[in-house]
Structures are given as structure tokens and as C-alpha cells.
């Protein structure tokens, strides 16, 4: 009863207030990215992500993507990784790769409950490997629709995040991603996230550094 009255009171006060006309929206010129070719978009995506200290590897096929992963795993000395189970990662067959490389591959599905999964992703994983639903050229941004096969902490808790994105998923602007994700109001993802570079801060004396709470490094493998 108390609650409905607070709601009513607030809305009532707002509705009683004098009305303010809403004018037509001014003209907004379209962003340059909207008229770019795919190669230009790849260039823009790469430049913008590199500005934020992200690393972009362009490969031709899933086979090459696996080769790149092997290189990264050796350079970063990866022993245990948490990987998502989305369709892009599924195509890479990482468990087989892990066995060959001597790397323990964990997925959220391996854990009996939330807490043991959290222990692993916080304390054990040297890296998180995920697919991404979008790569957005305008700011070198990844877009991820969180869901059963794309858990939130994999791209956040480990110190290294490696994202694998087929080039068909490269779009010029945020709107091109959001229009798809939010098209059907009945199937909205619980969370959608845009990721642009590693976690960062400048809160002590304005000194910028990466890896504040989330990954210190972000690597993107662009396939195609």
C-alpha cells in the first residue's frame, strides 16, 4: 500500500506539472562508417581498438584462428582457460586443442553450481576465450549477448580476454548491432555488453593503466 502510494504520488506530481512542448528533432548527419566498404570497416575497427591498446589479429579461416591461439597460448604461458560454449567457439573444438597443447579447457557447463564456477573463473583461469556477436567498427568495440552459452564473467574475471569474431559479424555502428539484439521485445538478452579495450582507470593521479578490475589485455581474432 505504502509502495503504490509513493509511485502514484511521484507520477501524479509529474503529470500535474505544466506541459512543455516537444519540438521536432534536429538533423543528425550520418556517421562516416555507414558508407564504408568492409575492408575500410576492418581498418577502422582495428585502428580504434588499437588506440585502446587492444590487439587485432586477422586470419583467413578457423584453422588459422587455432594456429593464432596456439601462438598466443605459448607467448602468454596459458595453463588453464575458461571458454564460452557459443557457436563460434564450438567450431574451434577447443577441448581437442587443449589436450594437444597441454592446456586445461574449462567451460561453465563443467561445474555443478554457480559457486564452483565462480571459484574457477576468479582463481584458476589464466584467460577467458569467447566468441562475440558483433564487432563494431566505429569505436573498435565488441558486442556480446550474454546467455547460457556466453557467461558474463569469462570476458571479465581472467587477466586476458581473447575474443574470436567471424568477419560477417563486423558492423559499422552500434545501431546495426542493437537493432538486431533488441528487435524482439520478448527475447531480450538479460545483459548485452559493449567491450572496447581492456579494463582501465586513471584514478590515481591521472596515471592511465590497464587491468584495473577486468582484463589487462584484450585480443581479437577476426576470421575472414
Amino acid at each position, binding site marked *: 500500500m505504502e509502495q503504490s502510494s509513493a509511485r502514484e504520488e511521484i507520477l501524479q506530481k509529474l503529470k500535474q506539472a505544466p506541459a512543455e512542448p516537444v519540438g521536432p528533432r534536429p538533423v543528425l548527419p550520418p556517421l562516416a562508417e555507414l558508407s564504408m566498404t568492409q575492408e575500410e570497416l576492418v581498418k577502422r575497427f582495428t585502428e580504434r581498438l588499437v588506440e585502446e591498446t587492444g590487439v587485432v589479429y586477422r586470419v583467413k579461416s578457423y584453422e588459422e584462428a587455432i594456429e593464432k591461439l596456439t601462438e598466443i597460448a605459448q607467448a602468454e604461458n596459458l595453463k588453464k582457460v575458461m571458454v564460452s560454449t557459443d557457436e563460434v567457439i564450438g567450431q574451434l573444438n577447443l577441448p581437442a586443442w587443449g589436450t594437444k597443447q597441454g592446456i586445461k579447457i574449462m567451460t561453465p557447463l563443467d561445474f555443478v553450481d554457480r559457486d564452483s564456477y565462480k571459484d574457477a573463473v576468479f582463481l584458476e583461469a589464466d584467460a577467458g576465450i569467447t566468441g562475440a556477436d558483433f564487432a563494431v567498427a566505429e569505436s573498435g568495440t565488441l558486442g556480446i549477448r550474454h546467455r547460457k552459452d556466453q557467461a558474463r564473467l569469462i570476458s571479465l574475471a581472467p587477466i586476458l580476454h581473447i575474443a574470436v569474431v567471424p568477419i560477417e559479424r563486423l558492423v559499422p555502428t552500434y545501431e546495426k548491432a542493437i537493432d538486431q539484439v533488441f528487435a524482439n521485445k520478448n527475447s531480450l538478452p538479460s545483459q548485452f555488453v559493449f567491450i*572496447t579495450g581492456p579494463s582501465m582507470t586513471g584514478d590515481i593521479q591521472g596515471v592511465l593503466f590497464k587491468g584495473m578490475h*577486468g582484463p589487462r589485455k584484450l585480443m581479437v581474432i577476426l576470421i575472414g
Partner: protein
Amino acid sequence: MEPRTEKFKELVARELHNPLSQKFLKVMPPIQNMKRSIGLSTFPDIEAAQAYGAAIRQEAIARLPELLEHFEKNALANGAQVFWARDAQEANEYILKLAKERGVKYVTKGKSMVTEETGLNEVLSQNGIEPWETDLGEFIAQQLNLPPFHIVGPAINVPVEEVRDIFMAKANLKEPTLDPVELGYAARLFLRDKFHHVQMGITGVNMAVAETGTIINVENEGNIRYTKASPRTQVSVMSIEKVVPTMKDALHLIRLLCRNCTGQKLSAYVSMDSGPKKKDEIDGPEELFIVIVDNGRTKIYQDLKARQVLRCIRCAACLNICPVYGQIGGYAYGWAYSGPMGQVLNPLLLGLEKTQDLYRATTLCAACKSVCPAGIDHPSLFLYYRHKDVTVDPYFGGKARPAQEIRFFKAWAWAIKRPWLWNLGIKMARPFINKNAREGIIRQIKGSFADWFRQRDLPAMAENTFHERWKNLKKEA
């Protein structure tokens, strides 16, 4: 946070002589302004982009009740729970109740201006629930019990020595260091454990999208993403004006927010929640509570001119460009909101009486207005508040000026409307005024106007007024 806006002059005097604040103010705002310009240059037409942002915010505020209802309906359909709070106390009690019912010992908090306004941390700690601020700057400010120096970099002025000492004492820093990166890493490790085991997380909201019932957070560190991924319970607190009509509008505002704030094209993380996690998801909140807080805003909303302060998106561009902020920094404003945005907002939230100096400590240069992506006209609001203050507005209150001052200005207003009286007055006043001139400048004067001259100089009055010279010229001709 207890407002100290009445101590403005005292705080200013202290901050003008605080070498640490001064050191930072020389460096930080110019760099931020430059980054902002570079960031904005990626728009095909900067003016058009800013104007479009202003139009979105104007429309959002004009349609506020309708958009809030629409947002609530969609948020509920997404499975979130919505609580409305008339004031700080109702919001804090509700959040405390949620925490107690779930038996949590601590919460992690993402940066939230509105919970600083409502003093949520104090209420939680008094009731035995530890609130951990997890944004690095907020974490430092919280440990040192300091108000925010800047709304985006709240502890950016705190010297590394002080950060080292407080981290040794309270954040498990083992080896003393003065390297900001190592200090940041120590905070990472300390707070990581909090994120790992947290059962309830509290965040603010940058935007609430009416058409989809989605709440959006914009951040760089990842602390908000943890706070929305690790715990089973998520509480997101928003003031009523955060709502925007559509996702498209939100995206444009986010572009503007990031560029105007840090010059980034996009901050590291922009996360958008439409309800709690689905059953088959392993992380994310099982329950999502959205707390919609009024706390004085419906009162502001009744005034068509004043309500434009509700358009603010908290980008801090106005702080970085402001010549007054550039001298005194954020502490002097005495509350969570500082700089021009605080100077237009605080007087309406705290009352014109308690914020006398805020709308007077301005050069009316309109630099704030020129950078604002929400189209707020700060200088005209300062004048509006001054008028309401001196006439003791029945709605917003105010404090009448001293009787002597009122009498003087009444007589002045009467006299300057009569040219003969003005001319006569000039002739009579000139010798008395010019008596104080040294090298053509009047720097001080004794008597009733002494205070006015404490901060101002006047050129001495000319030997002849314009009228007199005109007459003489005519005669010569």
C-alpha cells in the same frame, strides 16, 4: 554525505592554498578539454551531434511521467522488480531491508552519484552492512572519508603517499610503493576477493530506456560489470530523470557522454540489463531490483525553467571548462555534485538559502553552456536563482538581502531611470569616488561599499561624462 554548501567561502579559502589541489587543477582540466575536443572531432558535425543530444534530453524531460510509466511496464515485463522512493530515507530503508532479508554482510557498489546524494553508505554501515565502493577513485575517497574532488575522477588529486598509507592500513598492501600502477594492482587484488564472494551488488544507472525497460551502465574499470555478474541480487538505483525514450537515443547519448567526459569514443564497458539472468545462465543476478528515486526532483519539475537541470547526463565537461572550478576544485562545492552542474542542481535539491554562494560564484562566462551536450543554460539559471533568492521565492525559498542593500538598490533603480537625476548624481558623486583613485584605478573605498571593492577594481570616473563631451563637441562645431 552531509552537505557543506554553506561553508563555500571557507572551503574555497582552504582549497586556494592547498598545494595538492592546485597542482592538479593546473594540469587536469586542460588535458581533459583537449581530449574532449579530439573525441568530438570524430562526429561529422559536432554542433549537430551536441544539439541532437540536447533535443533528446529536452524531450525525455518533457515526457518524463509517460516515459517512466513505459519504462516501468517494460522493466517489469523483463522480470525486474521496481520500487519507487519519494526521498533518500525511503530509498535507503528499502535497500537496507533487501540486504538484511538476504543476510548479506557486505555489498559491492558501482559508482553511483544518486546514492552519494542519498547517503546510502552511511545507512548501510550504521546497520552493520559494509558498503565497498569498487571504482578505484571512489574506493580511495571512501577509505579517506573525502567528498569527490571531481565527479568523474573523485580522488585524482590524492597524493600517492596518502594512497599508499591507506592501502597499507586497509587494503592489504604488503610492500610500500609509490607506483600508481602497483597501487591500483593492490586494490584490484583486494576488491577481487570482494567481487568473488559478493551476494548483493548495488549500482547506479546512466540511462533507463523506456521502449525496452533496459538499464545501462557506462564505465571503464569493470567494477560495475562484476557487481552485475557475480552476486545473486542486483540493486540498481536511478533518479527519475535518467529515462530516455529509445535505444537509438541512448546510443547517441552514450557517444556524447564518453566523448564529453574522457574524450573516449566509447568507455571500456557499456552494459545493458533487461531483467535478471535467465534460468539457464550460470552468472548474473537471480533478482534485479530497480529503485526509482525522486528526492526533490518532482518539485524541481513543477518549474518549467528550472527543470532543465534534470537534463544533465553527468559528463563533467562543464567542470573541466569552468574557470571557477579550475581555481577551486571539487571540495569547495561541499556536496556530491560539483562544478557548474552542481551549481545549478544543488540549489534546487538543498534549497536556495543553504547554497547562497553556489549561484554567485560564477563569472557568467557561459563556458559551461557552450560545452553541455544536454543543452542546459547554466548562466541563465544562476541569474534565475539569484532573482528568486533576493525576492524570497514562495516556492524555492531564498534569503532576503540586508535592509540597507535593498534600500540602496531601490533608490538606485529609481534614480537611473531619470536622466536629469543620473547626470546630477554623477556630478555630485565624482569627487567623492575619484578621491580614492590611485593611478586612475579605484582599488578600495571606505564605508558601505568597502566589501564590494574587496574583490573588484573600478577605473576612475572620467573628468567629463559622454553627455558633457558631446555638448562640448557641438559647441566647438
